[in-house]
């Protein structure tokens, strides 16, 4: 038995962290928050093979699993990186692999692996969205509206879930589409509202769309874990420098205990995330329950850490001078995406047969 990461997974994580540390500077985050332009950054991630992580080898990808994707998401969260990773590198290839036919896979997976196709996602039909989702299939076309499309910046396609099951894959340049970009609380992950009037679509209907949602929830949990661990590290570092009453504030028990609490909440989440991610690839009857629970748990832990790590920074945490709100808002937005913790826990109960 070996419960933990392999040497390859460690090396991959280190390489990705190295790249992100060099490229995702505070200036880069601020620029991305203003312009929503990700192109240069995405090219770098493409060179690292990120878009093809889950794409099978016969389609030009690395053929790795959800645990590897979760480690990438954790590193991206740690860096509060602006990226279309969730939709383009995880949900779209997964939807094609699980629900697409061989021709669709052949048509899209190599382009995804090469980073040429970037996919924004709208899963409101599955997540209990508080916004609008009136998408409907009309023959081979799709109509209706959806709010809260995730990662629309520089997307070439949209992956849209329908209430009757399955996904529509829609080209972003179709003329029957009206898109309204929205600035989000998390400036590094913009949103958009979409109206479709009989837009041409490809249909992915050969499997269970909920598995794609499960994977998305695991990815958001991973990102939140990374972002929260970074916030704790930043709080500890700041407390070690900031002096008051003639000593560093890190030597005050009130500050130490806040940091110890954050560490105690976060450290057990790592193994939970590894296990939940791994379970998505195996035929594991608990996979859905685990995906829902790991998202809900990290939503809760993330909120506490985001608050307390900001508090340790005092007034500096509240301002944008140190950039801490980038992490705070990533965690806050992730909590609401793809179903908040109450929704996830209710689905977890359902998945265990607890609801009569």
């Amino acid at each position: 038995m070996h419960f933990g990461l392999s040497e390859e997974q460690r090396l991959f994580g280190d390489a990705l962290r190295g790249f992100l540390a060099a490229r995702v500077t505070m200036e880069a985050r601020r620029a991305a928050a203003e312009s929503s332009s990700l192109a240069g950054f995405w090219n770098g991630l493409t060179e690292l093979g990120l878009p093809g992580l889950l794409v099978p080898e016969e389609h030009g990808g690395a053929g790795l699993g959800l645990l590897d994707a979760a480690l990438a998401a954790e590193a991206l969260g740690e860096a509060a990186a602006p990226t279309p990773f969730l939709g383009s590198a995880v949900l779209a290839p997964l939807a094609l692999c699980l629900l697409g036919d061989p021709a669709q896979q052949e048509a899209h997976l190599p382009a995804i692996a090469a980073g040429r196709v970037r996919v924004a996602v709208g899963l409101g039909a599955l997540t209990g969205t508080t916004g609008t989702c009136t998408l409907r299939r009309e023959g081979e076309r799709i109509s209706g509206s959806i709010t809260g499309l995730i990662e629309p910046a520089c997307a070439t396609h949209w992956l849209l879930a329908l209430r009757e099951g399955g996904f529509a894959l829609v080209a972003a340049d179709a003329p029957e589409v009206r898109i309204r970009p929205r600035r989000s609380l998390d400036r590094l992950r913009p949103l958009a509202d979409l109206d479709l009037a009989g837009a041409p679509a490809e249909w992915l209907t050969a499997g269970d769309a909920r598995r794609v949602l499960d994977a998305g929830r695991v990815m958001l949990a991973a990102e939140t874990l990374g972002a929260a661990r970074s916030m704790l590290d930043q709080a500890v570092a700041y407390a070690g420098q900031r002096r008051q009453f003639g000593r560093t504030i890190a030597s005050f028990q009130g500050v130490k205990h806040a940091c110890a609490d954050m560490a105690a909440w976060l450290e057990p989440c790592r193994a939970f995330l590894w296990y939940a991610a791994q379970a998505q690839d195996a035929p594991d009857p608990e996979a859905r329950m685990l995906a829902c629970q790991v998202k809900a748990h990290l939503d809760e832990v993330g909120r506490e850490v985001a608050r307390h790590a900001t508090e340790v920074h005092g007034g500096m945490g509240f301002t944008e001078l140190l950039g801490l709100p980038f992490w705070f808002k990533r965690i806050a937005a992730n909590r609401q995406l793809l179903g908040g913790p109450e929704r996830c826990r209710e689905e977890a109960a359902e998945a265990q047969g607890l609801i009569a």
Partner: protein
Amino acid sequence: MDLTLSERHRALQAALREFIARYGHLSPPVGGGGGRKRPDRKVLDWQALLIEHGFAARAVPRQYGGYGAEPDVLDAAIITEEFNKAGLSLGIQGQGIRMLVPTLLEVGTEEQRRRWIGPTIRGEVIWAQGYSEPEAGSDLASLRTHARVEDGHFVINGQKIWTSSAHFADMIFLLCRTEPDRPKHLGISYLLVPMTAPGIEVRPLPTMTGHATFNEVFFTEVRVPVDQIVLGRGEGWKVANVTLKHERMLLGDSAKLVHRLHRLRSLLAETVVEGEPLLQKPVWRDRLMRLQGEVLAAKYHQMRLLSEAAQGQAQGQAQGRDSGLGLLVVKYYGSTLAWRLAALAVDALGDAGLPYEPHDEVAEDDAATAWYADWMYDLGLIIGGGSSNIQKNIIAERGLGMPREPKINGSA
């Protein structure tokens, strides 16, 4: 991640299941918080059966009365999991077995091992732990119980407190100051003292659970031969830290949390209010689901630490390479969560759960009393063995590298 068990571990699992099917009905009851009285015949027989099959004292060498298996953290975890799943007793868990035996195995003399380990693991000799004092709790090294040497004997005077089991223990392992002129950590010795020695007085200390599990122990001119010491004079703090290292390697007990979550789920399913089980009411279900998320984190965290410890053991290390911070959070996280699980249970019991009628026998407690006893006893576990506030200091200082509180002038 490779979660498949080895051939040998699967065989152990199969042997356990066979043992449980055949002998499970002989187990004494579990739960209800705390060792309340001396092990009775049923407990002693169960203990003997466990040792014979290698499910207790597994890694204690045969010449000292144990089963004599190679130490293996996964073995221990598999045994714990199977017994917990079946709701069976893991045998005697007293401080003699958990703390003194591994300490003697590491630093005791051959004579001490031969004399004490066998009777201790069989439950014939019960030990109390003499550490805390009224003025030395979290700051244990400032303890004041002292012993002078006189005609080949230590002569002990002082007071210990929070001493579990002292009212029925045969022996006490005791930290006391023997070198008053040396710095506080270097002036302490670790002595083995019979509770029957003249000059020892035990006064029960009633606790909120209503069970007589705690005591004060007073020492007045108590004499023990000078060879009743583990390691040398002034080395008691070192011995105590050997003991603590073994306690830390127990890694907390997520199996207890998982088992308790199952009991809690059954309680919510069986408690019907106005025609509907609590489990079908969203408010209650959400509370259960939230706790489940926290238990799952504890469960997989323990698997990770076990796996790292097993690899460390293979490489001759005391713990896994990456386990530092992970190990430090276990006691704080686990004890707080256990208490919160019991807290949901007492809420579900509601006003009908208020009649509280504890017995000396755990098996005689009704369900509501047992939940309340767990809930209150677990608060004791949050406080004991390094309180949560001390745990948070340790996590911050050793795990996160934050500085210690500056010393106040005059304190050591």
